[in-house]
């Protein structure tokens, strides 16, 4: 008799275990595979919208950043940085690029948008990013970005270019 009760409860538990997830998962069908996830962002093509979504939170809508909080401004500083070969590697490794989870196509568009908007008079003399170049630059391992930045800052000072205020020079 006891054995029968045990067998019955095992059956009941197994049955519940099988059917309960079915009932709950039927309420909300989760997207499957990469195609189902973050579709809105992956299909975005406007560089301005992508800047707003992925960069403006820190660099702000007008590109002025928050220097006291460690976010340097773009106007006056982005052009010399983008004209320096090491500066281009650095740009490809800032948190907004590395942590964005955007495609290289979207990222190249955003970087070129930043140059278009804030390089000012130097815009015509500043090379833009191609998808191929950006993909290659992102492949370069930059393990100590802080030291690398200091190195580039010294290069810019030497060439007489302006350097942004930054709490960790």
């Amino acid at each position, binding site marked *: 008799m006891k054995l029968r009760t045990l067998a019955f409860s095992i059956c009941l538990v197994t049955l519940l275990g099988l059917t309960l997830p079915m009932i709950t998962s039927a309420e909300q069908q989760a997207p499957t595979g990469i195609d189902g996830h973050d579709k*809105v962002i992956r299909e975005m093509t406007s560089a301005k919208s992508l800047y707003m979504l992925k960069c403006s939170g*820190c660099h702000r809508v007008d590109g002025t950043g928050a220097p006291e909080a460690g976010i340097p401004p773009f106007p006056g500083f982005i052009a010399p940085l983008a004209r320096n070969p090491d500066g281009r590697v650095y740009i490809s490794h800032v948190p907004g690029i590395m*942590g964005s989870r955007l495609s290289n196509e979207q990222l190249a568009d955003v970087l070129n948008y930043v140059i278009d908007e804030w390089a000012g008079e130097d815009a015509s003399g500043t090379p833009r990013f191609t998808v191929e170049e950006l993909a290659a630059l992102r492949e370069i391992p930059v393990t100590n970005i802080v030291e690398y930045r200091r190195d580039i800052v010294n290069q810019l000072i030497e060439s007489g270019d302006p350097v942004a205020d930054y709490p960790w020079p």
Partner: protein
Amino acid sequence: MLKIFERIQSALSGLVETSARQSARQYGRRSALARMGSIMVGGAVFTALPFDRAWGATPSGDGTYNDKSCDYWRYCALDGFLCTTAGGSKSSCPVGAEASLVSWVGTCHNPADDRDYLVSYYDCCGKTAFSGAQFCLRSEGERPAYSMGLHNDINWCMSNANKGYHCTVALVVGVAE
């Protein structure tokens, strides 16, 4: 009369003495220390646990166009007090509080025109929180740990001189296109 007190006293001290001796025989000094230690460590662990903002109201779905409700469409990733219930509006801070210099931006779907909008969540800072304000927790698009920039538990007032958190506004900054 005094004798009665003396008797009670001696009876009490005898009782305490026997129970103390008994417990000393039963438990070593180390066990008492271990117990005290575990209580202290337990306390320390509890205070070190991450600050939980998870006591907000969960959306019920009937306030999609009411900016004082957690269900309002713009608040799809808002974690904090609604400025609309703390003396401000859905896009501006209450008097005496200043907007955070940095914010986090996500997309929210507006069912009215079936479009996705870019919504920037600014924290209003430098004023103590108002206990009567509506607290909300919605985390669409939040990617904690993987993308710290998409973490709505962060107090964005950290970038300001006055770091005290007051409430959060949801500013539409564009269309996701």
